[in-house]
């Protein structure tokens, strides 16, 4: 059978299709159909010829088969040095074979490649730092994901995820109306405690336009409130767009480049419409990757930069603390061992390690911060990156992958982990659930909020003061 009802080569474009696909619980029918899905070898080869140019081809050709990348990959280490987890093997036996065979590969090959692309690589890019030729498997696996997606071989959840971006311009079914309502609700809900608190929607020429992750309004609206309160506390002139507020990209994990463009265009349109001085994204790693690092290219911007300065939440927070816009009550600083998770997407891949350390210097009593062994650019993936967290059929492999971070955290002796990234935060939550090592984990926003000094003029007025 060529194309299935759910598992096929077409992206999900309408709400109806999306709901039907969601209705196929756990992707049961979807994966059954995948067993029959044909490979369009001609199209596959044509795509490769158009998109696989000298960089990638040279990588595949000059790979010295030296195995220096083996030990750099946390999945190799955590799977007991399984030779089939050596990065060079993983890519040569998938993408390398597709090219060698000029696209003439079969269904079984593609399903195996799918397992390699989504369950044996999180696109953390760490191996690129250890290869003498600078061969970056994360980049190549991401490319392979694109090829697999275009042929319909993509995990069910990610087909849905990229469909969400196409239908709602958000990774979850949060419409523009839902979003604006959440803003109003959160401003009202917290208005009593924070008089004058606002979540200004679509304000033009503000200093800051804030963008975030759809699961914040959907599942953790208090995160939206916390962001608002912190901007309020810092006295910032800020806004959120009614459209183009969603910064993440499950489409990037899926390899659906068309949807990636749709998602990032929405954010950049908002920036062009509202003309903020700069854009600040939430505490999310892949959202930063998608909208700040890769986004400009999907949007076709030749300078490789977003339309306005676009920074990560930790950059703004470091600045707010540095400049005293937010002051920390010294008595409330953290006085227990605490460690920090470096998110691959904005630390290795965007050099922001120093900002999180700077924040730590303001909020942790000296002597209590413990670095994980191998950190900053050399950190290990949380274990759930690149979409791994969300794929049901690879849950077992993901849980094994979590052991790297578990052991790193245990070695620090800290019971508190600061994880300024949604994916890392989830992975650490899941590793606690799975392995029960007795840790707590947190984003920065609630932490800062719990220790910030609130100036008198921002406090609720006592009635008897009237």
């Amino acid at each position, binding site marked *: 059978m060529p194309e299935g009802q759910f598992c096929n080569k077409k992206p999900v474009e309408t709400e109806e299709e999306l709901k039907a696909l969601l209705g196929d619980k756990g992707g049961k029918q979807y994966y059954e159909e995948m067993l029959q899905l044909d490979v369009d070898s001609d199209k596959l080869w044509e795509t490769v010829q158009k998109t696989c140019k000298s960089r990638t081809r040279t990588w595949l050709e000059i790979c010295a088969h030296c195995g220096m990348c083996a*030990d750099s990959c946390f999945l190799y280490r955590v799977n007991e040095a399984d030779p089939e987890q050596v990065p060079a093997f993983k890519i040569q036996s998938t993408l390398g074979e597709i090219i060698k065979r000029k696209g003439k590969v079969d269904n079984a090959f593609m399903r195996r490649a799918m397992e390699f692309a989504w369950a044996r690589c999180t696109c953390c890019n760490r191996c690129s730092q250890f290869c003498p030729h600078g061969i970056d498997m994360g980049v190549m696996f991401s490319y392979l994901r694109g090829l697999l997606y275009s042929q319909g071989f993509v995990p069910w959840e990610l087909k849905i995820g990229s469909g969400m971006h196409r239908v709602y311009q958000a990774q979850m079914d949060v419409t523009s109306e839902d979003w604006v309502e959440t803003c109003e609700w959160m401003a009202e809900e917290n208005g009593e405690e924070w008089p004058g608190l606002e979540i200004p929607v679509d304000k033009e020429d503000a200093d800051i336009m804030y963008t975030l992750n759809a699961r914040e309004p959907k599942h953790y609206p208090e995160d939206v409130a916390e962001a608002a309160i912190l901007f309020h506390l810092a006295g910032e002139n800020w806004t959120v767009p009614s459209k183009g507020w969603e910064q993440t990209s499950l489409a990037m994990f899926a390899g659906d480049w068309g949807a990636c463009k749709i998602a990032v265009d929405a954010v950049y349109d908002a920036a062009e419409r509202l003309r903020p001085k700069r854009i600040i994204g939430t505490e999310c790693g892949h959202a930063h990757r998608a909208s700040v690092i890769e986004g400009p290219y999907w949007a076709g911007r030749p300078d490789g930069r977003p339309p306005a300065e676009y920074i990560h939440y930790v950059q703004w927070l470091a600045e707010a603390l540095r400049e005293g816009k937010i002051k920390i009550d010294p008595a409330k600083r953290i006085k227990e061992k605490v460690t920090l998770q470096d998110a691959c997407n904005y630390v290795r891949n965007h050099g922001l390690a120093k900002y999180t350390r700077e924040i730590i210097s303001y909020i942790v009593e000296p002597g209590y911060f413990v670095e994980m062994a191998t950190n900053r650019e050399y950190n290990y993936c949380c274990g759930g990156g690149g979409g791994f967290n969300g794929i049901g059929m690879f849950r077992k492999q993901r849980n094994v992958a979590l052991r790297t971070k578990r052991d790193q955290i245990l070695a620090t002796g800290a019971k508190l982990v600061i994880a300024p990234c949604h994916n890392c935060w989830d992975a650490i939550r899941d590793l606690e659930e799975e392995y029960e090592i007795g840790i707590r984990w947190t984003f920065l926003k609630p932490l800062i909020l719990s220790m910030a000094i609130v100036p008198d003029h921002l406090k609720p007025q006592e009635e008897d003061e009237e």
Partner: protein
Amino acid sequence: MASFYAFLTGPAFVISLLVFFVGLSVRLVRYFLGLDWRLERVAYRPNMEQGMKGGLWSIYKWLLPFGTAGWRAQPFFTICFFMLHFGAVLVPLFLIGHNVVLEENFGFSLPSLPQGLADLLAVLTVIGVFFIAARRIALPEVRIITTGYDYFILALVALPFITGLIARMHWAGYDFWMICHIITGELMLILAPFTKLSHIALYFASRWQIGADFAIKRGGHSRGACFPW
């Protein structure tokens, strides 16, 4: 015999060098022409200065023994690697015997290494090749990615060194070993642009690209162009 020898050190020598240099240059040019800012998602041109810094830094750091976290993570391999490469680069270029042939054909020569040092480097290269081959067999993580082709490349590099060293001993059969040495050496030169040996040039291209990538796109603007390799 004498005329065959003259052919090998004359026209064949010139042709081998020509194929080697022209071939590798073509590969380099084609590499850079094949870069595409949209496909790699790296805005090379508008950020060339930053990219150059990062690219050259990335090349430089990896040329230093134990200069990078990667090299430091694998001391055994790093030692073998540099043993092999020091000799493989320096001996062909700066051996006095090679320079004589160079002078004869082109009328110029390069400075020459003291013969003793050249001998030592050549021996180290052969030892390096030996341990790298042994490592391919011994370590499962290397064995799984090793193919016959990898051994072929190792042999292609080792043969001119082994035959050259034997000839250098001036034992019986000197002429035979010398001719073997020249043939294998020229074979290596001729095959380099068409095999994995093209990394002689493409190493610089590939390393430049990843260095530029990390400098231009992946945080060079906040971390500084030079990635902490």
